[in-house]
């Protein structure tokens, strides 16, 4: 009874999401379909970073590095070696996750600002690699002409709408897996690390290992987004994995609400929309990004999703008080 408002909001939210993401797309113009595809891919990326920021309490400034590495692997294998979808997709995830396993050894002992700086530096090395390893990555020019994959099904992914639905399926699978992940015993232990690492150690948790595994799993989910992006855009360049790209993902998480999983996906939707919408009018996208960042910190430091939760709770309290008096 007392949760009826929260229940209602949940149902309304789910219905809206179902309508907008599943039912309506055939009626969108191809511009909007492409935009929604982008939102979903970035949604996966933002949710993966939320594992680190929202649940483990570690802000990574190098998350775009894994997104980019995975996309580059797919790009190189698909264009130069003409590999099939499965090989490219799996290789992208394996390579990016492998890199995170090595980086994890360096970052997992750090917390707070130190974690931020180390991940920033490591992210930039990946960017540097993409920028400088010209004969492999094409340097500044990036790699273009990545073909849409052939899944061996009687559908063509060259059609934006079909491709959109395939991405939607990937998004839902990732959402499902991550939702279980954060509710699992391991996910619970990550929240403990976020709240008090010293207490966790005394309780019997090897906190280094938990942080390491959290870093690697965030990178693994992020690399799924990267592989999908390479197929979606058909083009990958160092600008997809530079510092600005990493900060954009952080902003998606913070705007949407860290520690809510679906919030960062929502944040990704908003940022991707604004980015495309605004860049049609002005070149000063970064200025707008900064402004959004400041507004979020000032008016919704805990993010939109948590704001909604607090609002629902507040309304519930008020009605309870009214009923009581």
């Amino acid at each position, binding site marked *: 009874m007392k949760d009826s408002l929260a229940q209602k909001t949940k149902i309304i939210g789910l219905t809206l999401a179902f309508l907008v993401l599943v039912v309506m797309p055939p009626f969108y113009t191809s511009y909007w379909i492409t935009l929604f595809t982008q939102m979903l891919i970035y949604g996966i990326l933002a949710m993966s970073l939320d594992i680190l920021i929202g649940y483990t309490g570690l802000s990574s400034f190098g998350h775009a590095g894994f997104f980019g590495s995975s996309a580059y692997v797919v790009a190189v294998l698909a264009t130069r070696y003409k590999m099939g979808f499965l090989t490219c997709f799996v290789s992208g995830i394996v390579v990016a996750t492998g890199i995170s396993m090595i980086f994890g050894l360096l970052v997992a002992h750090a917390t707070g600002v130190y974690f931020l700086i180390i991940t920033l530096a490591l992210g930039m090395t990946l960017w540097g690699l993409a920028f400088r390893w010209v004969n492999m990555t094409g340097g500044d020019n990036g790699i273009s002409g990545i073909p849409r994959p052939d899944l061996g099904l009687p559908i063509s992914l060259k059609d934006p709408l079909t491709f959109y639905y395939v991405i939607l399926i990937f998004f839902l699978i990732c959402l499902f897996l991550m939702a*279980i992940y954060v509710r699992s015993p391991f996910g619970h232990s990550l929240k403990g690390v976020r709240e008090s690492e010293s207490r966790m150690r005394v309780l019997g948790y090897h906190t280094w290992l938990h942080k390491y595994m959290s870093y690697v799993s965030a990178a693994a989910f992020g690399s799924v987004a990267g592989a999908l992006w390479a197929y979606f855009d058909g083009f990958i360049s160092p600008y997809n994995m530079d510092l600005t790209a990493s900060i954009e993902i952080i902003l998606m998480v913070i705007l949407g609400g860290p520690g809510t999983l679906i919030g960062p996906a929502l944040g990704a939707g908003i940022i991707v929309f604004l980015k495309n919408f605004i860049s049609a009018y002005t070149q000063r996208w970064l200025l707008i990004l900064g402004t959004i960042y400041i507004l979020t910190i000032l008016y919704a430091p805990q993010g939109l999703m948590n704001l909604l939760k607090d609002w629902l709770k507040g309304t519930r309290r008020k009605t309870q008080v009214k009923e009581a008096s």
Partner: protein
Amino acid sequence: MDMVEKFTRKEIIARLKMEIDYSTPCLVVENLTKDFGGLRAVDGVNLTIQPGERRVLMGPNGAGKTTLFNLVSGIYPSSGGRILYFDKDVTGLPSYRRAALGIARTYQITNLFPNLTVSENILMACQALVRMKFVMFRPLSSYHRLMDRCNNLLKEFGLWEKRNELVKNLSHGDQRQIEVSLALAEKPRLLLLDEPAAGLSSAETHALTLLLKKLDSSITILLIEHDMDVAFEFAERITVLYQGKFLAEGTKEEVKNNPTVQEIYLGSE
């Protein structure tokens, strides 16, 4: 003579299931020393505690009580000396390994998970020492035995009504109680309580003393306490530290009547 065995992983697991061996002391601290730069916070302390014993650790500020706790629970590496737990050397073990062996502690300054609910806090302690804490793709709520144990603990500790409250919204008294509950939820063999009654009202202190008195007599407890009433009511033997050194040990009366202890606590004339 220094042939003290080290714990292996298997032994740690076996140890948790074993009966307590009452013939060996639960904790032996030998010549333990800790330096912070030029400051010697703990200076050659010796301590022997039998299984099931309740011991109070006393001493004025800066006596090295909390540092001693940090050494025994493995927060700091020691600068010298040894720590034996049921006759085995744990001096080099990291704190999470010691927790797995059954050494639990509480903090003088409340150290909980403030943005989680009370039951989530207790669950954190419940799952700490089982392998399933690494399971990633199965919801925690589907582990019914664990949830049942957590619910029973919540009722036992009188926290059932508040189980869905965030810990940061609770009163100081409730937080202090959860501080102790977290340590107890791990079924420890050796419990280190660092001023559990700090900042509590007299009624709350009384309730806490009752809770501690009710505890399973097989648990060995080492308690830091300034409140003489709690200390004398709780323990048979008292150890007094002063400026990092061992000063006195004995029953309540012995310690009360010790002239050096009186001098430190009441000042010399």
